[in-house]
């Protein structure tokens, strides 16, 4: 092994999301779509066919009337750090974990579109391009040059704004530094959150906000018991909100009609 091939510093980027601050405004979803050149929804798209690398779910405590309480839960790729379910199922190595950053990357240009990874993901954080990407005439001028648009028939997902990581890396290199400084690289959703509910940083850096949040007693991760070591930490002081991390409860006979 040649030393030069080794990353200078091995980072484990992660996120903390304060559910007590999320207003469900959707700014993260929109900023994400703008940053990553996700096309406007096709008219035939539904909540289950669209591409939302980050999606905010409205979750309630299951009560009726005045006792009802809701919380907004942004769900994105949880960047599983252990036994990453989507990585080893891909038949052609289109999904990989970057050893330098711990980010689970999806290479749409190598994707066959078999959707096995989507079946493997417990968080439904992977999206298939059911349609050819299309922008209204002229709007392609507003595309982000750092991210290539994807073709129909491939899977894509959150990669913590890989284009931004590259740009940060280049800026750091231009400044003569070997590492990206804390705060010099944040994904678009983090930057756009008006309430600052989403925080981003290197979990290996004990001073970073996600690392601090990870140790908080009120922090939790979704489906932690699966043992996939997701790197997105959620935080809420409300007890019932922390229950969203658990497995689904059997149905109580009613369906949420809005979904």
């Amino acid at each position, binding site marked *: 092994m040649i030393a030069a091939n080794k990353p200078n510093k091995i980072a484990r980027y992660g996120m903390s999301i304060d559910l007590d601050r999320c*207003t*469900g*405004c*959707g*700014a993260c*979803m*929109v*900023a994400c779509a*703008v*940053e990553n*050149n*996700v096309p*406007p*929804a096709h008219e035939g*798209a*539904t*909540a289950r066919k*669209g591409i*939302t690398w980050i*999606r*905010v*779910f*409205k979750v309630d405590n299951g009560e*009726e*009337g*005045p006792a*009802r*309480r*809701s*919380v*907004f839960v942004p769900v994105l790729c949880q960047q599983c750090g252990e036994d990453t379910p989507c990585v080893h199922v891909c038949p052609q190595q289109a999904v990989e974990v970057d050893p330098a950053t711990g980010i689970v990357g999806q290479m749409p*240009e*190598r994707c066959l579109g078999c959707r096995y990874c989507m079946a493997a993901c417990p968080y439904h954080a992977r999206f298939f391009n059911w349609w*050819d*990407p299309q922008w*209204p*005439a*002229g*709007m*392609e*001028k*507003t*595309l*982000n*040059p*750092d*991210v*290539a*648009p*994807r*073709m*129909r028939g491939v899977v894509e997902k959150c990669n913590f704004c890989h284009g931004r990581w590259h740009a940060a890396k280049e800026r750091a290199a231009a400044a003569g530094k070997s590492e990206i400084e804390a705060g010099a690289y944040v994904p678009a959703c983090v930057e*756009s959150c*008006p*309430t*600052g509910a989403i925080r981003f940083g290197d979990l290996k850096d004990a001073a970073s906000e996600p690392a601090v949040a990870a140790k908080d007693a009120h922090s939790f991760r979704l489906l932690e018991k699966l043992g996939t070591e997701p790197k997105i930490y959620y935080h809420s002081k409300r007890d019932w909100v922390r229950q969203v991390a658990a497995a689904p409860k059997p149905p109580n006979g*009613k369906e949420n*009609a*809005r*979904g």
Partner: protein
Amino acid sequence: MQRTRRDILLFMGGGAAGAMLTPAPWRLVTDAAIWSENWPGIPRPARGEITARYTNCALCPAGCAVRARCVAGQPVSLAGVAGNPLSQGALCAFGLTGHQLPYHPQRLKQGTPEEAAAAVRGAMAKCGAGESVAVLDLAPGRAASWTYRRAMAAVANGVYLAPPPPLGGAAVNLAKARTVLSLGAPLLDGWGTPGNVHAARANFRLIQAEPWESRTAALADEWLPIRPGSEAALALALKDPKTAPSAAQATGLTEKQILDLANELTANGPALVLSADDLPEALALNHALGAWGQTLVARPEVPVPDAWKKAAPERVVASVPDNSIRVLFIDESVPGSHIPWGAIEKKLVRDNPVVVAFAWTLEGYGRHAQFTLPTAVYPELTSDIPPAIDSPAATFRISVSLVAPPAGMADPSAFIAKAAGIDAGNALQERADAIHKSGRGTLFTYADGKSTPLKDIKPDAFWKSLNEGATWLGGAEEPLTRRRGDAEEIPGELPSEAPRLRVSASDTFPLLVAFTTPTPATLSSPLMSKLYQDSDLRMAPNTAALHPDTARASGITGASRAVLETQYGRCAIGVIPDESVPPGMLEVAAGPEILDICGAFTRAKVVAA
């Protein structure tokens, strides 16, 4: 040596077999994979020099500071400006997609300005006594608004119309509030300047009294689920505990809850009461709680040139007699408050009124106007943005044109000024000069994040800075405080275009309409429609949610199409049954059709399509 065909074939075969042993053919196959990655028809993002440019968002009165990431001058993404004293680096979902609006498929591209001008000339000449020429300005307070007022002053029978100012023109100082009671106001969902509200949020206790669990209610410290339409009764009881028993009956809360709330508001002051519609009861309660001068302040006026002082007064639509407007200009190039078309229409003369709308899409009043002239849209347009409701200080900032507007766009103020026979001049710069002349306040520039006292800046530099992204903050040198109990100072019965809350529940219109979309923007970027479709976070425009029982009573089962009917008319909507909406309410995502017939707290009914 004789070479036969067989030798050549052998040579070729051997060569091919040998080539298979080199990496070349395999490399070729690998490269073919890379070529196949570029499917035809997929746009390639343009490349170019990446720069940051600054502006202010013109999509709502908040006017948040914006940093645009530009590639070869073309904005490709927007973000807030960290450190901005008001917007605090935040942008809402609508604002984040503003740079895509110029490419909206429903954008209006052509108009007939000459014909419109001729029609206006003819109608103005015909304008008889008791008839008027009017400008309806949805975003008053801009330099362009002053041009309209000057123009209307220059015209005989000229009238300048604007939506009623929220809170009677007072400004909210959230930073001072310790307890905020919101009577259905979407405080955390698009009210005021989002960044400012979220920054102040940690310092006040928020109590949301609202029939359904709105976004604000979900995030409030306390949510009081009250019966639809009982906000006024609650406000009255909080001011006057004697009415608590009847209020308890009206709201569905207990008397104790009401009295506790009243105690809390006084004990944990300064308090602030906000309501979805400007309820006079809420203003009176604020007054009683001593909010004036504390959490509610009168903002100093942004200076204007002296030459502008000869201007038509600002009037509300309701104050104009019915069937009296012969010529009406509507400026909706900058979004503002909305007035249902039904309320405007009845003010027009019966015989051939001329309505000229200035809009960037046909989704607004343009659908009803004889002439709709296309205008530039944010971020093409250049316009100042009046101070936001939650800014106690006077502000002046310009939404700068980041993208050149296409040819053939009309300039509303030039058009109206010309029709009135006055010279519009460069109103924006004249006003900037007037502000500079006042010498007050500081200038916050976005690129460097610095605040500089205005007196240290030369006029040219001030104008240049304003055009490169900056906010002038007037400071609060002369806060108009109002004393407690000073009845004359309370804004009285507010004229409102919308049917009021106190329209009692009737058999004709049993449902109360509540809007869920924070900004009644006529159109948003296609990416927002994506947000509507791809998630159940927000309903799509022209959709309503209602309790299944309510739906059943109206003969609607399941998600379906229906007709929404109010006193102003009817329109087709999509209906979604949702148990989280209390019975008797209709949670509506505004769309152009709905806005034509609904104001806030309209009573309505739903009929199966």
